[in-house]
């Protein structure tokens, strides 16, 4: 049984979650990482992806996040996301729209660096579509 620690998820509009959790899988821009209690201090940017939150007692929650960063410390994890939606509330149409937008971004990108970035975003969005089976 992992020790619980404080997890906060903040979007620009409000504080979405502030509670004790056992572990969270964070979709970092350089790869996913799992944060448990007593994690080494890390500051990482996010790619669009799913947060896998495990609450004490083993209950799970999935939250879709986009653009932001995570700050992990020994006794807390704070995630600031430009957008955060509970995976259960995520609807197929909205996600399809996101994918379409991302595709347009790829097509519109002016230079290679921008195109790579947009492509990365598109890939992670597609991955979410697959994982959620939408």
């Amino acid at each position, binding site marked *: 049984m992992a020790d619980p620690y404080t997890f*906060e998820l903040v979007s620009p509009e409000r504080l979405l979650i502030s509670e004790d959790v056992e572990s969270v899988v964070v979709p970092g821009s350089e790869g996913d990482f799992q944060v448990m209690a007593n994690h080494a201090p890390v500051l990482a*940017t996010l790619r669009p992806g799913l947060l896998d939150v495990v609450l004490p007692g083993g209950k799970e929650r999935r939250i879709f996040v986009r653009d932001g960063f995570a700050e992990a410390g020994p006794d807390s994890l704070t995630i*600031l996301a430009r957008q955060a939606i509970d995976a259960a509330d995520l609807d197929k149409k909205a996600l399809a729209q996101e994918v379409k937008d991302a595709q347009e971004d790829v097509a519109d990108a002016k230079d290679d660096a921008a195109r790579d970035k947009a492509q990365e975003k598109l890939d992670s969005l597609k991955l979410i579509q697959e994982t959620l089976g939408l």
Partner: protein
Amino acid sequence: MPSLKDLRNRIASVTATQKITKAMQMVAAAKLRRAQEAAEAARPYAERMDKVLARLGRWIDDGQGASPLLVGTGSDKTHLLVIASAERGLCGGFNGNIARLARQQARKLLSEGKTVKILCVGRKARDVLRRDLGSHIIDHIDLRGVRQVAFVNADEIASRLLELFEAGEFDVCTLFFSRFQSVLTQEPTMLQLIPARLPESGGGDNAESGPRAVYEYEPDEDEILTELLPLNIATQIFRGLLENAASEQGARMTAMDSATRNAGDMIDKLTLLYNRSRQAQITKELIEIVSGAEAL
């Protein structure tokens, strides 16, 4: 001397006006509460953003190869003033105060020989400034259809700014809005967005946690910073818009409160005048009757 009928009409019309201002005051009070809640709810995000930026800022103080969003373009010839105002009037000095501060700043910059460009957010500031600074207004963002300012709105403005900045349209960007202090006082404020002023990591920050843990950055500090700076601009604008929304409702509430009170005073005065002239007329009629009877 207005006739009795005129007075009656005036009393009726002032009463109708009072009803309207009273209703507007109550609506503003309800909206103010909502706007305040929204501003409150947005605070944690901005605070944490500040904290992280302050920590990152410590690494980047030599300005070597840092993002132009942070250190500027190296010149300060062209200034962009982003002026956030309300979409509607009838809110006391709210729009006027913001416009006055912006105008002062624009005049100052112009007299220093700088180029000034103005981007208006909200209709009212544009209406006020169009007369004397109309040629400087480059664009206008309409928020009329927006009931509650959402982050998306701020984000749109931010990406517009970034586009202009990348195109080399301006060097320094300042946001004008009204800071909400209380229902009675709203202070017009200017806030420099580009180059960004990183929040100071004051002594209190260090004292609270003793020796700070060394953070690992993923990707490295520079990259995180380049990613965060645009987000920070959006956050600042969002904060400004929310404060502005709360200030607007506060100002409207106070303005409508005094309008209601004024209307009340006016009704009292008119009623007094009405009663006096009514009695004067009755007296006059009586005198006529009495003197008519005496003449017989």
